[in-house]
């Protein structure tokens, strides 16, 4: 009886109501899990961990001289989303990526949204990842963000909120697919009865998305995944996607630019590449244009890109939409471009550049979550209620020194989910959710996503670099 002692406590719990009743869409899972003893559960857990290790589903721990590889901790209790909720999320995510792509096209062309004063122009022009050198650069089909991994959370009432839009190189999708495989092996009989939607189409959807943006609508484009190399922490994912799509995985050194075209060096000579799914940040793409010391990039790539001979997914310059200050304006973008209200709301956000907001931020730092505008991975962040007085003071100084670079949000009490703890029992742990959205000939959202879980008791940080793990995410055909 794994759940018999489980306490939802004062949080919004995904599986149980405040009264301790199991929610209808978790009912069949509970029945199955209640048949398992702790020993059996432990065995399954070890088997899953071992299989991840054997398959090399690991990430490299940076700064470790022995090149230690770890598995991304995986919790066997799946997170379940009923169809009704999923339809809501789908609508919200489609709306958001549509607005973001319109925004990016606009700021790299007419800049209507700035001219009409919807967003103060200075915010865009001073954004770290805004690339003025790509003004009026035509990108295929006007799509900037082809692959998006929006982070969602739920607050203490169960309301979904967008935490951030990852419009550069969102990672983690291979874990979604591997987690599902692992769950299938561990609980072979569970899926059929539960009515879980499959996630296996992701790679072919991604391939379709990439084909759609081939230069000049080329029929049978050559596609490659560009990776920083085998020491990158996400290398497993890069090869996984390349393999699933049946395309080449290339490093910078495999590519060369001639006559503004990109070629791969093969055993039979040079072969032209049409679309690159790049998993390298803008800064490292081309040492002629961006960081001259980058050994990962390809000299001349930007020339080929400008000439329209190669498409990059995502396009160059999407990082501006990831800026946490720009996030604040996404609801306005939705209104401006689509004439709609946002379907999934933002987390209330304060900008240090606004006088009123700044005052509030400095007076209430200890209650707020403060974030640097352009950091990711849980870095450059202060969680006020969990911080020491010295840390709070440090962040206040940083905010004052560089107001453009900081935002603050109220500390959201993230929803919790039953998670198997070190004490061999179910305990509530905070979670978030990253669905993957593909924007090509149409918008495709994988019915599932990466549910990350903060494995440390009470922790709100779900990042894998800081003690986070993941769960399989089930989107149901029905509502129970």
């Amino acid at each position, binding site marked *: 009886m794994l759940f018999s002692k489980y306490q939802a406590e004062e949080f919004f719990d995904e599986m149980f109501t405040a009264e301790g009743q199991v929610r209808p869409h978790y009912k069949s899972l509970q029945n199955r899990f209640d048949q398992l003893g702790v020993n059996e559960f432990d065995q399954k857990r070890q088997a899953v961990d071992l299989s991840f290790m054997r*398959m090399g589903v690991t990430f490299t721990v940076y700064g470790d001289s022995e090149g230690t590889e770890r598995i991304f901790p995986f919790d066997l209790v799946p997170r379940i989303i009923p169809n009704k909720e999923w339809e809501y999320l789908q609508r919200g995510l489609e709306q958001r990526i549509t607005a973001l792509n319109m925004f990016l096209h606009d700021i790299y062309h007419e800049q209507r949204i700035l001219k009409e004063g919807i967003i103060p122009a200075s915010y865009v022009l001073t954004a770290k990842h805004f690339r003025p050198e790509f003004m009026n650069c035509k990108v295929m089909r006007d799509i900037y963000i082809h692959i998006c991994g929006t982070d969602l959370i739920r607050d203490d009432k169960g309301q979904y909120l967008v935490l951030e839009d990852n419009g550069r190189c969102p990672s983690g999708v291979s874990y979604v697919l591997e987690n599902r495989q692992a769950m299938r092996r561990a609980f072979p009989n569970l899926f059929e009865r539960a009515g879980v939607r499959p996630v296996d189409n992701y790679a072919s959807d991604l391939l379709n998305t990439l084909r759609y943006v081939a230069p000049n609508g080329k029929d049978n484009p050559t596609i490659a995944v560009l990776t920083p190399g085998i020491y990158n922490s996400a*290398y497993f994912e890069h090869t996984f996607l390349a393999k699933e799509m049946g395309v080449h995985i290339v490093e910078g050194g495999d590519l060369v630019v001639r006559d503004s075209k990109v070629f791969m060096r093969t055993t039979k000579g040079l072969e032209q590449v049409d679309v690159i799914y790049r998993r390298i940040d803008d800064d490292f793409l081309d040492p002629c244009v961006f960081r001259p010391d980058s050994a990962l990039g390809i000299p001349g790539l930007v020339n080929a890109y*400008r000439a329209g001979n190669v498409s990059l997914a995502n396009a160059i310059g999407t990082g501006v939409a990831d800026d946490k200050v720009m996030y604040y304006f996404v609801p306005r973008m939705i209104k401006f471009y689509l004439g709609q209200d946002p379907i999934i709301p933002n987390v209330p956000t304060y900008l240090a550049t606004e006088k009123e907001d700044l005052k509030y931020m400095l007076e209430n730092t200890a209650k707020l979550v403060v974030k640097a505008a352009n950091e990711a991975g849980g870095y450059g962040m202060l969680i006020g209620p969990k911080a020491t007085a010295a840390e709070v003071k440090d962040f206040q100084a940083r905010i004052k020194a560089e107001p453009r670079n900081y935002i603050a949000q109220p500390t959201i009490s993230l929803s919790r989910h039953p998670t198997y703890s070190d004490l061999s029992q179910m305990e509530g742990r905070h979670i978030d959710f990253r669905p993957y959205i593909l924007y090509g000939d149409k918008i495709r959202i994988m019915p599932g996503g990466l549910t990350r879980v903060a494995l440390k008791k009470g922790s709100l940080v779900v990042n894998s670099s800081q003690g986070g793990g993941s769960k399989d995410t089930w989107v149901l055909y029905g509502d129970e």
Partner: protein
Amino acid sequence: MLSRVANSLFWMSRYLERAENVSRIVDVNLQSLLDYKTLDDKRIKEQWEPLVNTLGDDELFRSLYKKSDSHSVTEFLTYNEENPNSILSCIISARHNARAARDQIALEMWEEVNRLYLFIRSKETKKLWQESPYDFYREIKQSSYKLQGLTSATTIHGINLEFMMMGRFLERADMTSRILDVKHRTLQDAVCGPEEDNNTMIECAAVLRSSSAYEAYQHTYVSGVAPKKVAEFLLLSDSFPRSLRFCVRTFDHFLRKMTGSDPGYFRNEAEKLSGRLLAELNYTTMNEVFAMGLHEYLDHVQLKLSDVGVAIFETYIFYQQTDLAKEIEYQKQQQSQSQSQSQSQSQSQHQTQRQKQQQ
């Protein structure tokens, strides 16, 4: 196929074959120590030193260990990470290459290479090696056999298979020549020298076992172990899959598949050198080999093998390493030539925009 990936497939196979051979050689040597009547420090040293000479780096060994005995040499050849040819180093390199070619090899194959790596890295395995080396080396060899089976069961016939097979057989040819070289003195003396050492038979058997050739040899010759025939079997047999001649022939076959050249003709340097070496092995007798000196002959063959390896690399894999600074310069010139007016227009538009904002 990407040149880099082809190179990785080639080296993955080479390193796996090397790990297998080093395992077999060390294992056989450990076991044949038990066959001697008298075993003193001198004999032990004589037994191990040639292994270091032919499989590793003599100088490196002497800088790391005080004396050559069973422990130091097996450690050096098995677990020493500074020795690039130790079994551990070979497996690390094989996995590194497998990972770089991850999209071109089957999942099952990757899993086995990874399993082998996790096996040799684990603490329990190190204990196994200390307590029961036979089981340890057996595990390494078995894994290599399994990977060969997976290669033929899962690899698409074409360039992937060609590079993997070339790596396998080039390495195997090289290792067989080294196995013979370890005992070249015994063999040479037994054939050309006046008297026969009591231990000759033991050593001949060890040579055969080091190449998994003992049973095949008996089956072929029926007449008991004779030094000259042992050397002949491993050098010139046209049917034993580890003989030098067989390996070079197989290698040559896969090399030609890439261009479709017929035997007797060549289209590139690699084919020329490979064909020439094969012809030499096809038209050589053991009398000629021993007249030249077995060691000298093996040395000469090893050089040829190495030349073939270099030629493959230059024909199919090597590309002029781009000088980054020069490449950047070149691309910038291209850019300034092609920069159209619209570019500069947009730039100035943007600047006015920015100026407006600042006002």
